[in-house]
């Protein structure tokens, strides 16, 4: 190669860590810049927390440890679960579905960033967004008089496993359905699970058979597990972790198997 001009070839990939960091930063900015997504991830959970704590629309069950339970003690764990679902499942499914549709995933496939690097970056963006959500929602809950209990490690374990389960399902949807179908389905699922996943409506309100089915959902496992720990001070909620683990393995496995990049 004798050429020395501006465009003279000098190829090379950036160091992996730099690529993944850059990609994670970009993905996070894309998530936070999207107005409709912010409605789902921030506005709706915050509104639910404030509204249902202030207004006694739903009679919340009293705490198992005795005494009258405050609404916020019931609601805060559910809304935290909802926040995880909104980002890891709904937001990620819709964003990734449109990235696939508009050739973003295809074009990134030709860049030096390996696919697993892209998925790592996406996960990082989801986690960063969740941290921001949790900080905000926790602050709001405290201002409403929330008094959480329990082992923080169990909470983190639930949040991480819940994120894995919802990410797998979201990516499965984004990688197999058309972008418009993903948009519609992800929003519908969000709404259905908001009502039927123990987020604001206690599962005890549903008839026995329905309740058993609902309890197997990842959102119910996450909201139930968080509530057991944060409200009732339970130890590690192995049953709920088990349900989330199964969903995570199934969802991520199916996504890895069926995801189409174009």
């Amino acid at each position: 190669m004798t050429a020395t001009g501006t465009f003279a070839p000098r190829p090379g990939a950036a160091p992996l860590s730099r690529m993944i960091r850059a990609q994670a930063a970009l993905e996070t900015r894309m998530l936070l810049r999207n107005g409709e997504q912010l409605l789902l991830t921030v506005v709706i959970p915050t509104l639910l927390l404030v509204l249902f704590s202030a207004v006694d629309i739903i009679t919340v069950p009293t705490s198992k440890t005795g005494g009258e339970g405050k609404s916020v003690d019931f609601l805060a764990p559910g809304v935290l679960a909802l926040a995880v679902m909104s980002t890891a499942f709904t937001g990620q499914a819709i964003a990734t579905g449109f990235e696939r549709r508009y050739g973003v995933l295809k074009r990134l496939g030709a860049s030096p960033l390996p696919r697993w690097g892209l998925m790592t970056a996406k996960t990082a963006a989801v986690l960063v967004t969740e941290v921001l959500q949790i900080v905000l929602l926790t602050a709001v809950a405290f201002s409403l008089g929330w008094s959480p209990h329990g082992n923080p490690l169990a909470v983190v374990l639930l949040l991480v496993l819940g994120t894995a389960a919802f990410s797998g399902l979201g990516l499965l949807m984004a990688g197999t359905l058309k972008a418009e179908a993903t948009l519609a389905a992800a929003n519908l699922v969000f709404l259905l699970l908001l009502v039927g996943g123990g987020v604001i409506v206690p599962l005890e309100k549903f008839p026995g058979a329905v309740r058993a089915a609902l309890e197997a959902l990842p959102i119910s496992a996450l909201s139930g597990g968080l509530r057991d720990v944060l409200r009732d001070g339970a130890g590690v909620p192995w049953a709920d972790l088990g349900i989330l683990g199964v969903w995570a393995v199934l969802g991520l496995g199916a996504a890895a198997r069926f995801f189409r990049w174009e």
Partner: protein
Amino acid sequence: MHEEPAVEVHGLVKRYGTKTAVNGLDLTVARGGVTAVLGPNGAGKTTTIETCEGYRRPDAGTVRVLGLDPLADAADLRPRVGVMLQSGGVYAGARAEEMLRHTASLHAHPLDVGMLIERLGLGDCGRTTYRRLSGGQQQRLSLAMAVVGRPELVFLDEPTAGLDPQARRATWDLVRELRADGVTVVLTTHYMDEAEQLADDVAIIDGGKVIAQGSPEQLCKGGAENTLRFSGRPGLDLASLLKALPADSAAAEPAPGSYRVNGTVDPQLLATVTTWCAQHGVMPDRITVERHTLEDVFLELTGRELRA
């Protein structure tokens, strides 16, 4: 170290369901030039390019890019090859400059982003999100993303489709500069003038095969014959003229005083005609030479009927 061609495709076959998109295609692209791949819609251009980019797995045949297998050696190849897709490839909510800076950050020795933005006239829309860019601006951003990593080889799929004349010129200038600086460029296009302007080598694809390949000059010379017209007094002795011309020529007087000579129109033939006229006391008026353009050759080879 650069003995092997930039791209070497042998017997490539690619089917989508029952439809055969590429049907035993052979293509060799030398290093360091501009190769234009031409062909009607559905001829197999994009499938061929995307196989070279590692997006498609060949059903048969071999593909080597910079001596490597686009699928098995993808990790080694990706930093060395720049890709411009026919459309899309950018987050709808990403700003133009932000996306280009990001693409640059995935490479070890990227070009100066500010310089590229200016060169491609994207300075005014650097803060504009992709979804609000015009089609031409989106194309130019995509081109910038293909070259920012200083690749050895770039694949440009219809780089000037839908561009205004100014933007087309800017793109052409950039391609010429890439070539001058030693980058191998493979582009597809529907614009024959683009191929004539830019390409050292032209490959015409139809029905999933390369049906002609060569420099624009070679392709225009070969096959198609050219035409020389002149006017003079009516009723010249065409038999005498024909005797002076090379054997493969033809001469006719389609309208009184209007003459047409078909054959291999080169300087020698022109001299022969004017000499014959001088010998016969004829002043040839309005001499015009109609050389076949690449478009003529293309239509001759691929037919004139519309494609799906």
